[in-house]
């Protein structure tokens, strides 16, 4: 089985990266890949529970994060430094995540056979 890491770097409604990252994660999960989703830098904003994208006439794609477990996407990793720099706490996030320090985050990423960065 292939291990795939998808790394989110962008805020949720900055362009299409967030939407297309979620599409990729769900597709990979459906095809039986072992998928981990990573959030770093502004990518951590995608995880915030309170979002009102309707005001931007955008689709609330981050709701799909709640469905990741049904697609066998078991690991959601978040960079601790990225959260702290943006004044975010884990309690503000919509789904259960694993928070890692930068070194462990990078180390975990490198355990994957394939890495796709969504920038």
């Amino acid at each position, binding site marked *: 089985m*292939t291990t795939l890491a998808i790394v989110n770097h962008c805020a949720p409604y900055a362009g299409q990266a967030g939407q*297309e990252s979620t599409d990729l994660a769900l597709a990979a999960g459906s*095809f039986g890949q072992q998928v981990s989703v990573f959030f770093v830098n502004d990518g951590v904003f995608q995880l915030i529970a309170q979002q009102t994208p309707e005001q931007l006439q955008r689709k609330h794609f981050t709701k799909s994060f709640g469905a990741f477990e049904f697609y066998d996407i078991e690991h959601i990793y978040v960079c601790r430094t990225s959260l702290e720099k943006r004044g975010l706490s884990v309690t503000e996030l919509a789904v259960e995540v694993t928070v890692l320090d930068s070194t462990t985050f990078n180390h975990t990423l490198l355990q994957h056979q394939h890495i*796709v960065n*969504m920038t």
Partner: protein
Amino acid sequence: MTQFCIIITSSALDADGVYSAYRFAQAVIDKGHKINGVFFYQSGVTLANGYQTFLSDERDMHKLWSEFASQYDIPLQVCVTAANRRGLISEQDAAEQSEPNGFNLSPPFSSVGLGELMVLLEECDRSIQF
């Protein structure tokens, strides 16, 4: 021999990814390795636009990639959803949607679903993203 999958997500014109990927692909072939496919996603799909027109003394990456892929029989796969969002449409989709302006996504580029990327990733030894 190593089998590579190339993923292109950077814009065809507003970044240098498609050219770097082209040079990389040439090196892969030169060294006796194989490319099992190139997958275009995000803004990378813009390379597949057949309506791109360049001045005669300008580099045309659509043409270069098309010729290279045909020469070495490398599949050029374009994510249909990402492509449609960016104004690229295949002949079949244009016909089904009665699109009056024709189509701009044609061979050697093929319009595929994300599942095809999963197949490429499973088959290859290494993947690289530009």
